């Protein structure tokens, strides 16, 4: 039996199934659930970056009408912020201030107004200590991290000897590149509503991982995990900051238990700069050596990034350098420097986005040093297999990406000389860079249930953070079940549903999609078996291979008149439903193949020589991402990633006050994200790619590859336009005058 004979729903540019709810305002986000007797929490944040709380006076706050609780380290229940893995959370357990913006108290009141009013009246005296705030001043304290970089790789790697490779090189590029702190700024602020029912806890939380939240909260509060339920039906963007469970989530639960009422706590935009992670500042040294012909003889990528004083996060900037180019001598390393900042976290393509800025800028510098076209340089060093793992690729279409992208962009018309292309007074530059992102997959489960009325419900924990999970899972389920998409209801966002991984690392489609595919296929086979063994069925006696499933019916391939609807089979057997569960997990493919998406970014910039203003005016991105589940959502994901890259290249930069570590641009007026006018026409090419190895549904992730290579492509284009090489992001106007 198969369904490939029928028109596949997968691959169609289906409209989002949740589109209607979103355009009418009906979609409920985590702060929007009507809960009886709800009260409101706000957190108080430290205003110094290092020291101790010498005194905290809550009396005036407690006198504000409606105030139910002012929770500080003096009266907070004892919990362990380190329990349960994930992030180490400061949870009002001591008087230590570790960074500016740390939650040092929670006020709960009958209204948000009263809680805010009371929070302002809490009087705090600190014993302030000298904070460590600047990477450059503390480089001598850089250390080798204890942890691994994703997925379970050591922080350092070496193949051959870079020193030797550099010694034989005819041309060398050795440069330092820096990237600043950046904040995710999803449009929806973090929000949690905690409801206790006896010793059970229900949390509506804006999270990228309901199961991760469940485990962390249960561990910290010392509860059996089955007593914690997390719900998250719609998440207004995440990009990584909602991938971990942060302090405010647990604090809300703690406060709700104290006041014996449901508590809602929403972080203000300003409060999202510090306590919910950020892309850490990095300093990266790249050394490249090459022969005159442009063959790499050495590649070293050494990254140092910042982490907090109490937890470790490594921005894996040098991970890409391990696998992207063929080179006999490759060394990579990751070092950390502890500063008085909140703990950094994954932000859209962590490591790949920031690391590719350095590596792909350096490749451009090398191309200029060698006077070789930058695409040609990359082709000469094309990795036919993964040089680190020494494994073949499950599929790789990077060559086609370069070719098709360059053709669409008109790359051959480029005059490589800097400042050679102009439109009147305006300088024009063309730049390119390679994009890549690994294909990840984790264990995931799903249940598919076919109902007697010919519809189906498919359930899987998971979450939709805007990536289209509801939609693509509906499509996968439709094909697996042999039903039209309209007949399928896909449910997610609840830990009472089958377990799934965090929506991070672009793995949801591959992980959850595989589970949904298997569960759907299994439910359909079970149903078919009933028919094949039932004398009353027109399909009786046939084999599964003879049957196709179409629009909720089984029919014989060569005798279409012998057909039966799903509903008819179920009712004849007196069944309301038939269901199957699948627990899908990655298999041996990951030991046999190296699995990555690849792409090529082509950019045109226009630079105003009077003011240094840079505008991106044209973009072509070509990508090989395996099978496309939905061209419409895929296109948007890649464009969204590219535009995130425009922000990273030209404007995004979180600035701390140099003495106290307070973020001075903690709002959307001063922390710039791209607006519509910053976005040029963007042409996304999907290079046709079949990957039979990667997972049962042949998909590679698409959420993150779009940003990789983006910042470098822009910086390379700016160099081409102006002759100025900016190695420090963001590329703001004053760096160009």
């Amino acid at each position: 039996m198969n369904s490939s004979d029928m028109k596949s729903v997968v691959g169609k540019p289906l409209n989002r199934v949740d589109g209607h709810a979103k355009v009418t305002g009906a979609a409920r986000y985590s702060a929007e659930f009507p809960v009886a007797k709800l009260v409101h929490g706000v957190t108080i944040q430290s205003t110094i970056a290092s020291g101790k709380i010498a005194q905290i006076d809550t009396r005036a706050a407690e006198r504000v009408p409606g105030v139910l609780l002012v929770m500080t380290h003096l009266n907070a229940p004892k919990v362990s912020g380190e329990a349960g893995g994930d992030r180490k959370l400061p949870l009002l357990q001591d008087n230590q201030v570790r960074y500016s913006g740390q939650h040092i108290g929670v006020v709960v009141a009958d209204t948000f107004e009263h809680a805010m009013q009371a929070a302002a009246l809490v009087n705090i005296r600190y014993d302030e200590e000298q904070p460590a705030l600047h990477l450059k001043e503390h480089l001598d304290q850089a250390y080798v991290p204890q942890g691994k970089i994703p997925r379970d790789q050591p922080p350092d790697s070496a193949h051959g000897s870079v020193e030797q490779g550099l010694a034989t090189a005819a041309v060398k590029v050795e440069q330092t590149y820096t990237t600043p702190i950046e904040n995710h700024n999803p449009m929806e602020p973090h929000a949690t509503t905690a409801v206790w029912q006896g010793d059970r806890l229900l949390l509506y939380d804006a999270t990228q991982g309901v199961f991760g939240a469940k485990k962390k909260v249960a561990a910290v509060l010392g509860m059996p995990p089955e007593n914690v339920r997390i719900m998250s039906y719609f998440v207004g963007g995440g990009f990584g900051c909602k991938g971990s469970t942060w302090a405010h989530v647990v604090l809300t639960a703690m406060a709700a238990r104290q006041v014996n009422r449901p508590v809602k706590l929403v972080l203000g935009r300003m409060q999202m700069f510090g306590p919910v992670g950020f892309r850490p500042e990095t300093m990266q040294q790249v050394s490249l050596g090459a022969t005159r012909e442009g063959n790499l003889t050495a590649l070293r990528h050494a990254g140092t990034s910042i982490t907090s004083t109490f937890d470790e996060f490594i921005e894996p900037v040098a991970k890409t350098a391990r696998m992207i180019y063929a080179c006999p001598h490759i060394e990579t390393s990751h070092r950390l420097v502890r500063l008085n900042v909140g703990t950094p976290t994954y932000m859209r393509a962590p490591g790949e986005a920031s690391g590719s800025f350095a590596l792909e800028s350096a490749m451009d510098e090398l191309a200029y040093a060698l006077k070789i076209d930058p695409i040609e340089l990359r082709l000469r060093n094309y990795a036919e297999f993964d040089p680190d793992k020494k494994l073949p690729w499950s599929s790789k279409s990077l060559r086609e990406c370069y070719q098709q992208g360059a053709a669409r962009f008109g790359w051959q018309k480029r005059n490589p000389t800097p400042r050679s292309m102009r439109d009147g007074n305006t300088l024009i530059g063309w730049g390119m860079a390679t994009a890549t992102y690994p294909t990840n997959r984790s264990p995931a489960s799903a249940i598919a249930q076919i109902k007697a009325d010919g519809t189906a419900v498919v359930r899987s924990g998971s979450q939709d953070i805007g990536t289209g999970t509801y939609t693509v899972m509906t499509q996968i389920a439709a094909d697996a079940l042999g039903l039209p998409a309209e007949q399928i209801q896909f449910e997610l966002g609840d830990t009472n549903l089958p377990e799934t991984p965090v929506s991070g690392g672009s793995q949801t489609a591959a992980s959850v999609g595989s589970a949904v595919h298997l569960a759907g296929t299994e439910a359909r086979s079970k149903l078919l078996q009933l028919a094949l063994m039932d004398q009353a069925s027109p399909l009786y006696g046939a084999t599964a291979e003879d049957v196709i499933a179409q629009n909720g019916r089984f029919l014989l391939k060569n005798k279409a008149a012998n057909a039966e609807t799903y509903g008819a089979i179920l009712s004849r057997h007196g069944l309301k439903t038939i269901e199957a569960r699948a627990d899908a997990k990655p298999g041996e493919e990951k030991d046999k193949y190296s699995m990555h998406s690849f792409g090529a970014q082509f950019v045109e910039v226009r630079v105003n020589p009077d003011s240094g203003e840079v505008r991106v005016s044209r973009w072509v991105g070509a990508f090989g991402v395996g099978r496309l589940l939905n061209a419409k959502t895929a296109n948007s994901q890649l464009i969204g990633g590219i535009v995130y890259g425009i922000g990273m290249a030209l404007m995004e930069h979180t600035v701390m006050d140099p003495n106290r570590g307070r973020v001075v641009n903690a709002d959307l007026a001063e922390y710039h994200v791209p607006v519509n006018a910053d976005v040029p026409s963007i042409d996304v090419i999907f290079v046709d790619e079949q990957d039979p190895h990667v997972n049962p549904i042949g998909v590679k992730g698409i959420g993150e590859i779009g940003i990789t290579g983006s910042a470098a492509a822009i910086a390379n284009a700016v160099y081409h336009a102006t002759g100025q090489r900016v190695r420090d992001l963001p590329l703001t106007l004053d760096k160009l005058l």
Partner: protein
Amino acid sequence: MKQVLESCLTATINGETVRIQAIAPTTTLLEYLRQSGRVGTKEGCGDGDCGACTVALMAQGADGKLHYQAVNSCLIPIGAIAGRHILTVEGIANGCLHPVQAAMVQTGGSQCGYCTPGFIMSLFAAYYDGTVNDACVEGNLCRCTGYLAIRRAASLVASSPVQDVFRDRLAQTATELGEVSYDGAQSQFYRPTQLSEVLALLQQHPNATLVAGATDLGLDFSHHRKSYPVLVSLEAVVELNFMHQTTEAVEIGAAVPLSHIEDRLRGVFPSLDEMLYWFAARQVRNRATLGGNIGTASPIGDLPPVLLALDAELKLASAVGERTLPLANFFKGYRQTDLQPGEVIVSCKIARTIAPGAVRRLSQSYKIGKRGTDDISIVAAAFCIDLDEQNQIVHARLAYGGVAATPVRAIVVEQWLLGKPWTAETIQQAKSHLKTAFTPLTDLRGSAEYRKLLIANLFEKFFVEYP
């Protein structure tokens, strides 16, 4: 003006009459909507920066007719909606999806969906104005889509406005805003209709604060959560809501929203057109006023440089009487003005005549920010040069924002330019004077050095564009 304060405000939300009671008049419309269960409208910042909270306010446009105006509900004090009609994302699907909603579904303009209600309402307002284009969503941020799918949605509906109930509703005649005197949660909100009443209220309540579009003051309500015992809204005051054009001059009432100025004066002052284009975003310009922009005395206010370069003159009024004052004498120091207690900015007058002996006028403005639109200036500049038949400079105004504690003119350089020919050589010399004319600060947006460069380079850019 009613002296008895009402304890209830009435407004219409999505066609339904609502009575608002016992809440402070500074409570924002967004807070009210969300607290009353209308959670379709989103809060992304509370600062006017993201547009997630955009709703449509039915209001008189520059043409005197009713329009749907996209506004940021996070910056609107609830007092300001008394007697008005608001539409939110929940109120525009009339049985089936509104065309702008359908288009957003069709093109995938909504991903996580959190920005979507705001985009929908910006598009909705533009749809009935026939102005669905890129600019109509300039005040809406989206972190997911990269905007292109939203642009495609806009282009789908751009050319097909239909006759429907929403358009029918616009055919009603616009009624003038009525008086409001409201007291809620120990704060008072007045919306008088006569200047004399404003002046009387200011006499009665020395602690009163004037509010116009609240796009600046609104941050105090929404973000800093300051409470104001007495607010006096200028929105309905007839003497502040007029525009008067003659061949000699243009006079603009202080409470006229910037979007009206944009529409009605287009083509009159190129430098004003240009600056209004770069000024904030649609939602803000629909509410922000000229009086408010001058009243904030912000060193980075964008209109003062333009008005300084055009020698604008203010009319001020208080219970004592009226006076006029050149704008150049109005700014006294960082966020300090010559405005006396009890005094109100009534209007701003700009002459259209050029200097005696001159045969042509060159005038333009420039705003440098980091983003394509919707940005705060690093430096704003406005220039006005009058030339005689010999191409000699007979009148020069070079005004800047973002380079000192107040908006300022480069008076020394202006004087130096008089009598010089309008040539590249003169510009080069002027540039070297301009580099030392001010001592700007280094801040987040740009370094002092970069600002100095801009001060000079922008003048050269002006010359290149207007040789």
